[in-house]
């Protein structure tokens, strides 16, 4: 099971039908992500990075070709199954942190756990994960608006990790942080990867991409490198 790739793209095509004509965002993309990899996806604006991220995150389905997550083909899955897949096997980290302003830090982190268990959860796991991303205990009861951007992103990382996902999908995780704080977040990512977490990171920042061990470059909807 451990030898099975966590993600496989096979000749994936994504076409957006528009009134002015079809737009092909991805054109025959194939790659494989093995367990424990740290991959950067790079490319200019409009190259298809966001489409690729949406497909990897099971937020969208391909027009043709196949995507496998942990051996499961997502093409024929229902919205409910795709949602469960995102909840259980994929962790998302967004550029703008995207924490829930109405929930405190612990509640934000344990939110995916609650979705999974459908009941109140022990906050101890949330505290433990927050400590692992080096967030101070005194901040746990604060709301996202009461902590800094770097701290918010650490909370977002903790939230992404809480259900022990197979893959961590990061969309410009340092894009909204200063360079020093961004470097701290990337050190955290590297550490998580060293501990075995598979990470796929979309970025246009080559310095940030240096933290990864493999880079997929994409242009005009095709993988060029």
């Amino acid at each position, binding site marked *: 099971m451990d030898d099975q790739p966590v993600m496989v793209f096979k000749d994936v095509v994504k076409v957006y039908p528009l009134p002015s004509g079809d737009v092909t965002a991805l054109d025959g993309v194939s790659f494989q992500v093995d367990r424990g990899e740290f991959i950067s996806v790079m490319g200019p604006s409009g190259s298809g990075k966001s489409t690729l991220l949406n497909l990897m995150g099971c937020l*969208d389905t391909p027009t043709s070709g196949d995507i496998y997550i942990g051996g499961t083909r997502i093409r024929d899955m229902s919205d409910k199954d795709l*949602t*469960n897949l995102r909840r259980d096997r994929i962790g998302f980290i967004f550029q703008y942190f*995207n924490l829930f302003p109405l929930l405190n830090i612990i509640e934000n982190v344990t939110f995916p756990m609650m*979705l999974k268990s459908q009941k*109140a959860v022990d906050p101890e796991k949330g505290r433990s994960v927050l400590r692992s991303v080096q967030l101070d205990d005194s901040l746990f009861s604060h709301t996202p608006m009461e902590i800094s951007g770097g701290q918010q992103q650490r909370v977002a990382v903790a939230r992404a990790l809480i259900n022990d996902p197979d893959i961590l999908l990061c969309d410009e995780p340092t894009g909204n942080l200063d360079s020093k704080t961004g470097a701290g977040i990337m050190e955290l990512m590297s550490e998580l990867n060293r501990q075995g977490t598979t990470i796929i990171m979309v970025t246009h920042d080559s310095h940030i991409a240096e933290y990864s061990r493999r880079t997929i470059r994409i242009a005009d909807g095709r993988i060029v490198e």
Partner: protein
Amino acid sequence: MIFWEIAKRNIRIHLLRSSLAMLGIVIGVVAIASMGILGNSLVLTVSDSLKTVGDSVIVTPHVGGTMGGFGGGAGGSSSLKITEQNFQQIKRASAPNIAIPVLQTSDRMKLGVGSDEIVAAIYGLNPDDVPDLLKLKEGGYSRGDSGVLVGSTFAKDNNVKVGSRIAIGTDGEKGTLRVTGIIEERGMAFDVSTDSAIVVTKNWFDETYNRNDYDKVVVKVKNLDDLPGVKTAIENQMNKRDKIVDVVDTRKTMETIFAAFGQITTFVSAIGGISMLVAGVSILNIMMMSVTERIKEIGIMRSIGAQRKEVMSMFLYEALILGVVGSLIGGTMSLIGGYAISSVLLQTTKYLFVFSSLIHIIYGMSFGIVISLICGIYPAWRAANLNPIDALRHE
């Protein structure tokens, strides 16, 4: 129940607009419940007034018909009368039930030396029939022609007690009678409305007003199920060729009256319901605002694993909280308002704390909650069906 918690917090964080939405529900519940309570209290008030006469068939000369077997009578309030012969026919038709002939007029009377003359209704009844028709709250029934019974309002207004004397006619020309008893309050009645009247013996009435016929006949029916049969029997007996009497089944009349009151109550409650619909539109509007403001949040929830139904439930909880809190406040205010209105308009609150009145508060509250939920469905559905990718891009 994290979605319940989020719904609560979202209401708390937008307290002003949530309160305004709830205010609409409060007004709607109060409108529906108070109208219902008032209508029901009126029905109960009338019901209480009429319940003592719900077992009678009233026979009166047919107004607008031929004179038939009826002749005019001196001193009467109407030129149409029921003769002794007619009465005997009615009595036979309604047997074995009790048929009570009633004489009625009004006259001046004086209630003691130095007091002002007043005018009041006078009923003439056979002494033997009186216990079947009237209950006393004080004193006893008249044994001789010099005795008189007085209605409770008459006694109260004129400070009349058992033993008081009443001089009938101008300067007491028709004689003086002694009060032997005070009649229990009967309220508005189809047969005899004695509250503000006096009741004399038939003999005294006949001699004083030179009468030998009757104004109406009251048939007290022992078994209420026989009411329609008795009515039909009298009609068949009396109105064979021409319609000479009008026969009223008091229970049927009461049912008609109550049905009319019920329709009025429903109508005014429906008017209250319109305000509830307006409140519902307000909830819909606020929920739509809430969805629009939180599109990105919905996108994040969906992307990290929240199902459509969970997103939908979050917004429905919000609508439910608005509806329940608004309805609870509205229900409480309806109770307070109903108490105040009943006290002022009906002079009593005894009709408020009965099931048939309180149920209108339950109706109002239920309607408030249901309207809130219905108006929350579309925004919740819209939120649940947002495309997560579009929602995440939303700024």
